[in-house]
């Protein structure tokens, strides 16, 4: 999904100007709080991160700044990252994940899956209403799934996530049966994601265009006013009492109101938080993290998102020179991911060498040394592959051709720091990486046509290890008929087999084995170079209490947030 935080050139210049002029801004060197577990294991955050620890005090208005506007509040119709936390404010989902990442009840109290894995029967809560007064029931679920896949909704994501869904049947008012064309175990996972939230059936039927501006959800807050380019004003729903059991919260949210404003400039998000204009920022800039830590009145937190980590480069394995796995591997070994993570994240980011985010279920840390930074090994591999001669500029040559490739990147004033750092890293092993910047639309064209040697960047947040299928299965290669995310155009029968089997498997032991093998296979195939974990950073004033994280997206949930003030 698209990354909402665009670091504009303006921001960088602004930061520089501030640094020069402010003087008083103290860059106190502060140790980075390490995540709970060491780098050598899967990351699992403590259960308290996901569960309310004690009751809060009701009342007050929380002022929040956020980088970007989604343009519409119909989450079925967008793929924007902001939907992750926005969904938890306005809407609810059928399913929630528990702290371990397994599906757990929410609007669906329980469910059964038929032995062939193709029929899901959901038993729904009978006490849930939407903010427009309509009831949540089996028909509501059916209409929501239809709305997601209705081409008129123009869904860039939700529709694809429920692609195997064939049809739904209302068994009785609170029992819904979903029939799939083929077994698809990620079904429950995706139903827990905010892009697949439940919207009022009345609104879907009578006025679907209004969902974008004045949505009727069943969530803990109701949109009072949404002003594009400015913000969203939300008010508490007093009769809300159906937050996910995993959160351990009873009754309505504590805050009376939330006033959310779009503040595109990173610098301003930091300074306006520090000056107290806002209580909370959902997109805290990494470059100000040290200053936020040094400020006793502020709290900074970050949790690694699930899914696929940020990639530095994706190789097109069907194009020279990346048809040779030795070249791909040598390239990966030569990229100093520690260094790049430092440059990009100002000490906040976690470098990454394997293919699944360490917070994802069935992540296996065993293979993270396979592509560890090792320049001599990279040189040996290229020698082995026959790239032994060097030209005048110091680049490797074979049969009169220089070891070189073009990497396509989205157009901007200056190429991204990440790509430039990688370019100088691989120069050391005699690889000439040429950065080609294109307007976004042309980039999309080339990408879909497979007309590239390599692509820069890319992340994929999701809450399921099925992310590996979405990115690496051969059925996810873009064709004239289908748009897919396998941009390395990798076709590996073994990998395909593991990932397809995993979609049909329920047994955790078998799943664990399949996903583990798939992760190992990827470190052998090297379709791309993962560089760091995807890490959203939030910051807030110290008197903002009760922040818990969403189990699907690791973004903040506001139902449990309260203000520890005299007059909140």
């Amino acid at each position, binding site marked *: 999904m698209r990354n909402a935080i665009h670091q504009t050139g303006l921001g960088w210049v602004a930061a520089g100007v501030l640094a020069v002029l402010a003087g008083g801004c103290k860059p106190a060197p502060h140790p980075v709080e390490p995540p709970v577990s060491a780098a050598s294991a899967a990351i699992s955050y403590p259960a308290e991160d996901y569960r309310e620890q004690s009751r809060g005090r009701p009342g007050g208005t929380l002022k929040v700044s956020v980088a970007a506007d989604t343009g519409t509040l119909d989450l079925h119709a967008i793929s924007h990252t902001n939907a992750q936390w926005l969904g938890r404010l306005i809407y609810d989902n059928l399913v929630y994940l528990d702290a371990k990442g397994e599906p757990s009840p929410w609007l669906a109290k329980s469910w059964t899956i038929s032995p062939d894995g193709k029929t899901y029967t959901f038993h729904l809560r009978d006490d849930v209403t939407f903010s427009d007064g309509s009831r949540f029931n089996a028909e509501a679920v059916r209409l929501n799934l239809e709305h997601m896949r209705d081409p008129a909704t123009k869904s860039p994501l939700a*529709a694809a996530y429920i692609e195997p869904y064939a049809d739904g049947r209302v068994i009785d008012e609170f029992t819904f049966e979903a029939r799939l064309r083929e077994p698809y175990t990620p079904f429950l996972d995706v139903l827990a994601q905010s892009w697949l939230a439940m919207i009022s059936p009345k609104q879907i039927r009578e006025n679907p265009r209004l969902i974008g501006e004045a949505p009727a959800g069943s969530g803990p807050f109701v949109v009072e006013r949404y002003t594009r380019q400015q913000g969203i004003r939300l008010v508490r729903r007093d009769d809300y009492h159906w937050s996910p059991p995993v959160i351990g919260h009873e009754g309505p949210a504590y805050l009376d109101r939330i006033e959310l404003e779009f503040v595109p400039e990173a610098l301003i998000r930091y300074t306006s938080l520090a*000056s107290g204009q806002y209580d909370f920022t959902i997109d805290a800039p990494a470059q100000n993290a040290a200053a936020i830590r040094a400020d006793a009145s502020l709290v900074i937190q970050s949790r690694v998102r699930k899914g696929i980590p940020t990639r530095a480069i994706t190789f097109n394995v069907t194009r020279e020179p990346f048809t040779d796995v030795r070249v791909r591997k040598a390239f990966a070994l030569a990229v100093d991911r520690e260094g790049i993570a430092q440059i990009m994240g100002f000490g906040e980011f976690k470098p990454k060498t394997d293919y699944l985010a360490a917070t994802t279920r069935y992540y296996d840390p065993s293979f993270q040394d396979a592509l560890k930074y090792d320049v001599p090994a990279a040189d040996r591999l290229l020698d082995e592959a026959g790239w032994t001669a060097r030209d005048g500029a110091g680049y490797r040559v074979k049969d009169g051709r220089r070891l070189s490739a073009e990497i396509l990147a989205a157009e901007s004033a200056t190429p991204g720091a990440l790509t430039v750092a990688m370019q100088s890293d691989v120069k050391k092993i005699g690889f000439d990486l040429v950065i080609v910047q294109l307007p976004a639309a042309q980039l999309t064209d080339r990408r879909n046509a497979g007309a590239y040697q390599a692509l820069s960047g890319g992340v994929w947040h999701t809450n399921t290890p099925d992310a590996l299928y979405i990115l690496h299965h051969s059925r996810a290669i873009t064709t004239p008929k289908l748009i897919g995310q396998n941009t390395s155009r990798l076709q590996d029968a073994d990998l395909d087999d593991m990932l397809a089997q995993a979609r049909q498997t329920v047994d955790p032991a078998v799943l664990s084995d399949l996903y583990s093998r798939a992760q190992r296979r990827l470190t052998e195939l090297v379709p791309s170079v993962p560089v760091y974990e995807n890490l959203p950073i939030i910051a807030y004033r110290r008197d903002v209490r009760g922040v818990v994280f969403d189990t699907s997206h690791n973004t903040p949930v506001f139902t449990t947030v309260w203000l520890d003030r005299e007059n909140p």
Partner: protein
Amino acid sequence: MRLGKRIFLRLLAGVGVLWGAATLTFVAVNVTGGDTALAILGGPDALPTPEVVARVRAEYGLDRPLIEQYGRYLARLARGDLGESYRLRIPVTRAIGQQLRATVELALCATLLAVTASIFWAMLTAKRARWVRSFSSGSELVVSSMPSFVIGILLLLVFSFRLHVFPASGSHGWKSLVMPALTLALPMIAVLSQVLRQQLEEILEQPFIVTARARGLGDAAVRLRHALRHALIPLVTLSGYITAGLLGGAVIVESLFARQGVGRLMVEATTNKDVPVVLGITLMAALVYVVVNLIVDLLYTVIDPRVRIG
């Protein structure tokens, strides 16, 4: 009669300008290439199903030949229909309408500020001691050549982060309007007061000023009652420059101060290839130019009778 014909010809030319702007933007948007349907659906990081892509192509007429798309587009424009925003999923007129008030507020405040401040400043500094003039023209040069986001950040540093007088962002009340308007106005003040001062200095040499002084009028009265009126003509000529400054400046100022407005809508629309919104705002800007030019033209005939005769 002559004035009526003049207005009619001007309006006709205005329609021509609008048509030209519409055509140019249409061409510009289409030569950059790329699949608009996919851009609408979230670019490279989305997973639209084939049904969804097909639907988007058909609904927005993207599967038609370009010339047909152009024809339909002009026909819609003629009816005053700017189409629907790809990203916001609402009519473009509504999308712009929602943002218009904030931008007009900002523009009016900035203009008011620029005009009063530059008149005041020019009157104060014209034909004064050498050091006063070199100081004022020097500072004007610095301010007018500073990018507006640098000015904005300087103001933020002083008034928001240090003194906490004005909020750094948002659009609530007059307080949040002060710094954006000032940021927008400062470069204009610099240019306008330079022009005004030069004009004033020329006029203050004129015989009728000497006569006025000879009648025993004080310096302030001479400047205010006699010189100023004559010096204001170039200000009207510069209104085209002012309009351009306002429209262009709004893009940066609104983003920097997180104000809502048409400028920021334009930025979002451009980055997201929201073609109908880009076209809509371009046309709106062209319309503003045409109207401003028409008004200026008519104003000339009021201020300077020679134009009427010629």
